[in-house]
């Protein structure tokens, strides 16, 4: 959703997201283009699309090489490989567009879930919240912040790979709920002192999601929610919220 400050500034929505679902596998990414970068809407779109596609390919290749279920170390390699490839692809895109890579500045949060293992990697802000079973939420990936409220790391910066936060966990109980979001929503749904999830936001959202029959209409309603004054009077940046619930 285009944030109100961007509507005012006449800028396009600079957030992007992408996902891939196949059998037991979920791959998803959200990316937030830097407000000050000229073509960051392109940057975030390339980042979200390329990272999901690459993770899917690397995962498929890993499966082809081994008949065993994918383990944590392998999933970690998939995430790192996908982020690295995405970073190179942003440099290639900048050359194609005859521009500087910093004009495509974007964050990236990528997650891969297969069977019982969950892996995620992030450069920048935004966060990922998960729940095993109903009601108990955990911030699986926390936002990267600088000294200032509007400061973070970007996938396009030269030292980006050293800033990659990566986390891989074997989920003891089945993963039941997952939410990914860009920084626009972060201050509204994570407690600022310890980045813990605010359950009075996530509980009703997932209960609502479970009550929704079809996906197209759900996306439209979710978009209407993100554009509603309830949200926009607290946040004027672009907003992306990606929700997944898993069958038991």
């Amino acid at each position: 959703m285009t944030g109100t400050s961007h509507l005012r500034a006449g800028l396009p929505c600079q957030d992007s997201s992408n996902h891939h679902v196949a059998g037991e596998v979920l791959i998803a990414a959200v990316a937030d283009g830097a407000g000050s970068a000229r073509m960051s809407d392109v940057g975030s779109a390339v980042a979200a699309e390329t990272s999901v596609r690459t993770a899917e390919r690397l995962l498929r290749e890993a499966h082809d090489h081994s008949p065993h279920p994918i383990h944590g170390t392998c999933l970690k390699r998939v995430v790192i490989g996908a982020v690295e490839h995405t970073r190179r692809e942003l440099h290639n895109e900048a050359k194609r567009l005859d521009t500087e890579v910093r004009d495509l500045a974007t964050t990236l949060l990528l997650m891969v879930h297969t069977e019982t293992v969950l892996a995620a990697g992030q450069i920048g802000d935004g966060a990922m919240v998960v729940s095993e079973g109903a009601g108990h939420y955990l911030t699986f990936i926390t936002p990267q912040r600088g000294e200032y409220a509007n400061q973070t790391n970007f996938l396009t910066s030269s030292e980006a790979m050293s800033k990659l936060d990566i986390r891989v966990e074997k989920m003891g109980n089945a993963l039941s709920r997952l939410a990914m979001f860009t920084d626009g929503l972060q201050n509204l749904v994570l407690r600022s002192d310890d980045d813990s999830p605010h359950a009075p936001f996530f509980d009703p959202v997932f209960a609502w999601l479970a009550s929704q029959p079809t996906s197209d209409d759900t996306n439209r309603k979710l978009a209407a929610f993100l554009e509603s004054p309830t949200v926009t009077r607290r946040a004027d940046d672009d907003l992306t919220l990606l929700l997944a619930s898993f069958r038991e």
Partner: protein
Amino acid sequence: MVIPRDDDRMPGGDDLNLEDLVEFTDNPEPRCACVLLLDTSGSMHGPPIQALNDGIRAFKEELENDSLASLRVETAIVSFDSSVQLVQDFATVDALATPALDAQGATSTATAVNFAIDRVEERKQTYRDAGVPYYRPWIVLITDGASTEGRQQMDAASERVRQAEEAKQLAFFSVGVQGADMEELNRMGTRGALPLDGMAFREFFVWLSSSMTRVSSSRVDDEIDLPDVSGWAKL
């Protein structure tokens, strides 16, 4: 409001609006500190000081019109002439008293600049202690003259501004009213001073308000994309 917990099914959920169901955190709003560092020396007497006072009122009005900026921008007002005075400590716009400044005395620019940097560093510490996120603070110097404190003191103050800018501790802007020593102002900081077009104080403060609104809303990285200055600057 009763929110069902531990229950994935919400009876009649199809008819409910998400916005009526969710609750958000009560996190503190991130703050953006801004120091107005204002020359009230004798040469500002008359129309300039009146226009400056009007400009500050316009600044307050503009900030009040923006719901997020009114929560986030904290303004302090420091005047300097023969001495330096904290006229208004950091306050969000609802608590910002617009002063009636008058003009007399000399121009203690170097002392004033050091004072402003100290206040900004103190304020950041207050934010950190309280767990309040913050943006890079701004210091805005408006003067119509040259420092009466001597070259050595001005050079030391200018060097401090330059280092603070390079370390991204703050953003320093200087505006020269007619008669200002633009060379002296240009030695300060890294972005160069701009001359005010006549008495366009009001236009400047409207620009400053929309700049602060921009800084305190969407995320920016190193370079702040500021609004056009042609409404008030003599270019």
